[in-house]
């Protein structure tokens, strides 16, 4: 069971990306489960769930400081027992820090868990503006710093020069991260991302 975290600030396209990735993995014959913070945030409709056999678990409600980590660990254990997914995609809240979510994954006991990559979505349209702000920028930098893969999303809506500028900026924050350009909305770059996950 490979656990992949898909983080990013509000508006970065996490929901669209997680649904597109789930579909793509399901089409390759993989069993996929999704864990979300607040089920209302991910409009995975019944048709998609039945068509692709996805399992969706919500761990919302608890206090974000500690209860969510415990709930996350429990939910991973429960999913492993009841569903045995090949992949678990976790969409933490927009204000989660990847390292905290990693702690929650680490709390799951007795599981054959393979820690997959931490993917952070960078908003191609508004990311630089958000980064330039002192307070918000610090927060988003912490997310990027904790990423294995940073995907510049909404690539269809920006110029090549802007994308290159984003890449340069991301490299200064996390020189080790793999950087991809994607459009979760129309599928651009998603296959490459799926290959990195698999």
């Amino acid at each position, binding site marked *: 069971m490979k656990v992949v975290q898909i983080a990013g600030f509000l508006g970065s396209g996490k929901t669209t990306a997680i649904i597109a990735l789930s579909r793509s993995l399901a089409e390759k014959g993989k069993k996929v489960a999704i864990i979300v913070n607040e089920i209302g945030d991910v409009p995975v409709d019944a048709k998609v769930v039945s068509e692709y056999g996805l399992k969706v678990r919500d761990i919302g409600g608890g206090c974000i*400081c500690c209860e969510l980590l415990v709930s996350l*660990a429990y939910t991973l254990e429960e999913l492993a027992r009841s569903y045995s997914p090949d992949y678990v995609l976790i969409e933490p809240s927009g204000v989660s820090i990847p390292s905290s979510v990693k702690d929650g994954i680490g709390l799951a006991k007795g599981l054959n868990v393979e820690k997959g990559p931490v993917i952070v979505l960078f908003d191609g349209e508004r990311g630089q503006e958000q980064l330039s702000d002192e307070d918000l920028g610090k927060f988003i930098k912490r997310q990027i710093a904790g990423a294995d893969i940073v995907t510049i999303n909404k690539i269809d809506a920006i110029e090549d020069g802007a994308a290159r500028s984003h890449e340069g900026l991301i490299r200064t924050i996390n020189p080790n991260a793999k950087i991809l350009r994607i459009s979760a909305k129309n599928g651009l770059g998603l296959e490459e991302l799926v290959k990195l996950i698999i």
Partner: protein
Amino acid sequence: MQDRMTPAERLAAVLMGQKPDRVPVNPFILGFAAKIVNLPIGDLYADPRKSFRAQLLCAEMYGYDATPMYAYASFGAWEFGGEVGMPYEPGQSAPYIIRHPVESPEDVDKLEVPDPRKAGSIPIAMEIAKLCYENKMPVVFQAGEVLTTAANIAEPARLLRWMIRAPDVVHKLNKKVAEFFIAVAEYFTSTFGADKCMAFTGGPVESNKLINPRQFGEFVFPYMKQIHSKVLGMGVHVILEHPCSDQNANLPYYVQLRKELGWNGKYIWAFGPETPLEKQIECFGEHDIIMGNVDPPSFQFKSFEDVLALCKDNIERGIKNPSGYILGVGCELPPLAPPINVYALMKAAREYGRYQ
């Protein structure tokens, strides 16, 4: 070892600055109580009678000193017109938000301060409060925190963005939230009498994992002071303040709050495990009670012996507070913790928490 006081006597002693037979224990148990009496956790938040009974039986079974209450971290969304779900599914530990009532600055303008008698979970909290009152227990009502509640209303990431891009919108929302909490306090104190009530306040969005101390000073402190001042003015004598998660950088503001309120009333400080007890004693020890802050996930994932050792360490450090100490957990006790680990709290209090 036998207890020589009842939970009520023990708590009263600590509140009056006297030494009880042993340190009291408040394990911050909500969802765990449902598990102990074989209820779904959802019932603990949706059915006041079942909730009261579960909390009461759990406290009696272990012998800890907390009384039933009603509070949850996602408070605010339902009360201001949004929608929450009750935690009936595996892995869910508390009510969760399905729809935030605010999505835009215009929504904030249109937002009305709800009538507490009808707002969201308040009727459930009131039913539990009535049962507490009938059983001669303190009535606990939720009185904050403002920013966590505002985040539950508007969605945390959106609120963080507004704090930077549109601070006026956040202030507008916070004012309405503060007005609501004051109305809730008036509702409870006028129903039961202020001397029977205790205010509970706390939330994770105020933590320094999400905001810096400057933002705390601008977006939290003035509203917290307003609410606390009003609540103390109504005659409520005890405020249980839970600065959730890492709030070390906000500590100077909490000290400032107490100073500006003239150290009135009695505060019970329930910081997260990130804040050393020694630091809390230095800040508040002359006047206030410190509640212990044993690491919550340890109750779920560590052995009985390890949890017992953590509780012992907490007692040995916290018992030095001159104004009183309660053995506690740094946030809600994980609902699915092994029952034996909760017994570790009681064993530690009885073996290491005796007063001479």
